[in-house]
């Protein structure tokens, strides 16, 4: 019994030790192009390195093997490559070069075993080692890098490949270093490096145990990488894009300073500083590099200093140390790669005035002002660098016009004169400079709104005119006959007199034109809409407004005697629902009702309200009004409430005892409300609601939104929302009546 036990324990131990021995020898699996050739290569370990049977390896490589026994040397030849190695030496000779491999060659069982990764590398294999499975994977490179060279203007690096393998960009902590890794790639034998120079250095590395080619680009200056799209494919090559760099600062013989870059340069921000006297140019997205500098002998600039002032965002700062009393100005250029500065005398500003709704002044030299608007109070600031004001120039010009109230002139600092125009509101402006004579430049700044666009919208019953302006304008809508036309006159002071593209005629609008002329000594921009027929028109927008909206009725039916009774829910001592912030339903209901009544009346409907003000009217009385006057339809307007503040949306009710026209009316209104207000669609519902149940005509009760919902409560306080609700309901009503047309 005890013998048996002993044997079992012994066996167990043996198995355990055997397993551990196998693990300890750590013989890897070897795959070439996905095929397991471990058995054939018979790998062994020696000094930690993996060695394989030379005969088998040569066979796999289809190489020739030669054993020179007397000098203990092995030659492996494949094509034009001969590798010579000696027993016990880690050095191998490849044609005329010698390298060290991971281990010397060894002899075992009459076979030579040679260092595996070293030899495979020599024969152009890429090796990847997977630690977990203890396997070597060998690949032939799938792409070759032929050349690295500059793209046009050194704005990019081009990696010329025979085909593109998976690649990635590795950003390093060092802004001067960039790493690109390309999988299963190798350098071609005659690879050309056309990049390395005094500013750049290009190298390549293999990552140990990976089949990845690593390209390292190092620069003397922080690398000019633009954004996330640094690397991309183009024409089968890889492209690394750079930001433009400064290439030269040269004083030109004709008397100007040219700052040149290898790509397009943004407009610099300019400032002047004293003590020492200097001009600072901050150029965004431009990079420092080795650049040419030549100031010659000039009377304006003592010295130029250039620095990479900032990264993220990138700014190149050029500081020009100026001579006393000397100024330079940036001159506009056709060539976007250049910034040209020309010496100017300090410009004199004179003749500041306000005429034709323009701020006008003159200078005796070209000046490029810096213009911007500020709010609270609204004003336009005009900074004029390198200028001074004429002695007798006034400090203030009082205007008190619609748009510009006053113009003030002041000195901002020793170089800058500042003109400030106090505006009644922020508006668009446009600066223009015109050379009047040799020494007179006229500057004019127009303050005006601009047309955004004019559009026509043809609907069932209406052709709609929409005139969209950049800001609110005063306007007047007039109707003329013979031929029928509707005219929109916009106050000329408030709109730029430029003409814009008019839309294609549509609906009953058959022609349009735009003009600017004087009317009662006032400038007016007039837009004329010639109509093929005329029935009625309705101005839906406010005055002034930035969106002028006019509806032109397309038929007579709407002007017939159709009475609509509109019922604003609650009133008087009955506030209806009351929101958390004390918005009372009765107030909101009446606002919508009044807006709706205006719209419908202007469309030719007769409208009667059950209450015109904040008074209590019983449900019974409301019904009586509608029934006695014989209304065509009855519209009751409410806003909703619930115990939960999450309840939301728009719903329209009809009485269960009435469907047909009531249902149609409700559906049309609900559809328009949802489309316009984009609230949750709670649908059309049937309910025994008093006012719609006992009125004899088609009747609906609309619950526009929930006062108990904080979001919708906010909306209900908004004038625009009220207007939009009314417009949507009116559209639904018009749509409903459209059914009875013909």
């Amino acid at each position, binding site marked *: 019994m005890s013998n048996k036990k002993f044997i079992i324990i012994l066996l167990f131990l043996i198995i355990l030790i055997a397993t551990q021995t196998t693990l300890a020898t750590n013989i890897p699996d070897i795959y070439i192009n996905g095929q397991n050739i471990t058995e054939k290569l018979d790998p062994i370990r020696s000094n930690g390195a993996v060695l394989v049977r030379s005969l088998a390896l040569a066979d796999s490589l289809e190489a020739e093997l030669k054993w020179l026994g007397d000098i203990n040397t092995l030659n492996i030849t494949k094509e034009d490559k001969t590798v010579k190695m000696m027993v016990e030496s880690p050095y191998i000779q490849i044609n005329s070069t010698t390298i060290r491999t991971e281990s010397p060659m060894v002899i075992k069982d009459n076979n030579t075993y040679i260092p595996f990764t070293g030899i495979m590398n020599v024969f152009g294999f890429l090796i990847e080692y997977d630690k977990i499975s203890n396997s070597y994977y060998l690949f032939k490179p799938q792409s070759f890098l032929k050349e690295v060279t500059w793209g046009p203007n050194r704005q990019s690096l081009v990696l010329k490949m025979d085909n593109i393998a998976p690649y990635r960009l590795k950003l390093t902590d060092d802004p001067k270093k960039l790493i690109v890794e390309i999988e299963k790639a190798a350098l071609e034998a005659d690879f050309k490096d056309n990049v390395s120079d005094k500013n750049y250095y290009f190298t390549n590395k293999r990552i140990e145990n990976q089949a990845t080619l690593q390209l390292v680009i190092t620069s003397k200056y922080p690398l000019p990488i633009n954004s996330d799209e640094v690397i991309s494919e183009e024409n089968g090559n890889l492209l690394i894009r750079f930001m433009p760099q400064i290439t030269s600062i040269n004083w030109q013989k004709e008397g100007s300073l040219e700052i040149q870059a290898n790509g397009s340069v943004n407009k610099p921000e300019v400032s002047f500083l004293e003590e020492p006297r200097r001009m600072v140019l901050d150029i965004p997205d431009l990079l420092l590099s080795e650049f040419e500098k030549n100031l010659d002998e000039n009377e304006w600039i003592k010295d130029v200093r250039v620095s990479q002032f900032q990264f993220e965002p990138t700014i190149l700062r050029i500081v020009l140390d100026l001579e006393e009393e000397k100024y330079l100005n940036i001159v506009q250029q056709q060539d976007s790669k250049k910034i040209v500065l020309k010496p100017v005398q300090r410009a004199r500003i004179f003749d500041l005035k306000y005429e034709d709704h323009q701020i006008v002044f003159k200078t005796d030299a070209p000046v490029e002002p810096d213009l911007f608007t500020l709010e609270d109070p609204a004003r336009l600031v005009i900074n004029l660098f390198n200028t001074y004001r004429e002695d007798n120039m006034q400090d203030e010009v009082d205007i008190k016009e619609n748009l510009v109230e006053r113009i003030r002139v002041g000195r901002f600092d020793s170089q800058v004169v500042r003109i400030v125009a106090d505006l009644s509101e922020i508006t668009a402006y446009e600066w223009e400079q015109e050379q009047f004579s040799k020494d007179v430049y006229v500057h004019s700044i127009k303050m005006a709104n601009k047309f955004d666009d004019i559009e026509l919208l043809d609907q069932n019953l209406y052709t709609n005119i929409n005139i969209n302006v950049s800001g609110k304008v005063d306007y007047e809508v007039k109707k003329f006959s013979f031929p029928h036309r509707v005219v929109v006159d916009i106050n000329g002071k408030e709109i730029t007199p430029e003409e814009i593209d008019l839309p294609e005629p549509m609906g009953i609008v058959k022609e349009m034109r735009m003009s600017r002329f004087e009317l009662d000594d006032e400038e007016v921009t007039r837009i004329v809409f010639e109509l093929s027929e005329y029935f009625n028109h309705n101005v839906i927008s406010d005055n002034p407004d930035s969106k002028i909206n006019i509806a032109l009725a397309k038929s007579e039916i709407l002007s017939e005697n159709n009475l609509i009774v509109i019922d604003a*829910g*609650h009133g008087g001592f*009955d506030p*209806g*629902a*009351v929101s958390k912030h004390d918005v009372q*339903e009765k107030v909101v209901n009446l606002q919508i009702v009044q807006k709706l009544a205006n719209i419908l009346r202007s469309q030719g409907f007769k409208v009667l309200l059950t209450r015109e003000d904040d008074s209590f009217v*019983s*449900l*019974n009385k409301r019904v009586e009004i509608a029934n006695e006057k014989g209304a065509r339809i009855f519209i009751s307007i*409410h*806003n*909703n*409430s*619930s*115990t*939960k503040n*999450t*309840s*939301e949306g728009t*719903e329209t*009710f009809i009485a269960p005892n009435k469907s047909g026209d009531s249902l149609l009316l409700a559906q049309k209104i609900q559809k328009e409300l949802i489309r316009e207000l984009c609230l949750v669609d*709670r649908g059309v519902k049937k*309910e*025994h*609601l*008093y006012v719609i*149940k*006992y009125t004899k005509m088609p009747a609906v*009760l609309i*619950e526009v939104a*929930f*006062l*108990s919902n904080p979001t919708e409560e906010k909306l209900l306080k908004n004038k625009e929302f009220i207007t939009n609700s009314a417009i949507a309901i009116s559209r639904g009503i018009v749509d409903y009546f459209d059914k009875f047309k013909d």
Partner: protein
Amino acid sequence: MNKKIFKLIITVVIAVLIIGAAYIFLSDTNLFVKEKKVNLYFGTDDAMNLKLEKRDIRGRNLYLEAVMELIKGPTDPNLTKTIPDGTEVLNISKDGDIIVVDFNDKIVKNHWGGSTGERITVYSIVNTLGQFEKINKVKFLIEGEEVNTLVGHMDLSTPLEPNPELSQ
């Protein structure tokens, strides 16, 4: 040995029976009062519908107890109360297939308003009372008076039938 186990089982069974019986007798002295599981209809979160909550009620007047339970509000946090605070039932009576409920004026004065709000209140009561046998309609009175409406939307001048569409 078998005898021992048998004795033990018997003892345990008897003990359980005694404790159980004692619990029933001691905990509920009104064991023989009328008790019924009823459906109470409360508002859903979105105020779109009513949803039922089952509750045991006991008492001599099921109609009154049901409305009182409604006033207490739901136990399910996903449901909302339907009757305003302070509301009391002044009277409840049966007239043929109609139940007439008379509320104090708090049901109007403390109401949150809105067609939806009113609708949920009214049908929470009508649908709840409508579940009882031979009850088809509910008529509302406020402070003993007939009314046209609760808070300005619903027609309460005539008795209302339950609205099954509102109950999920």
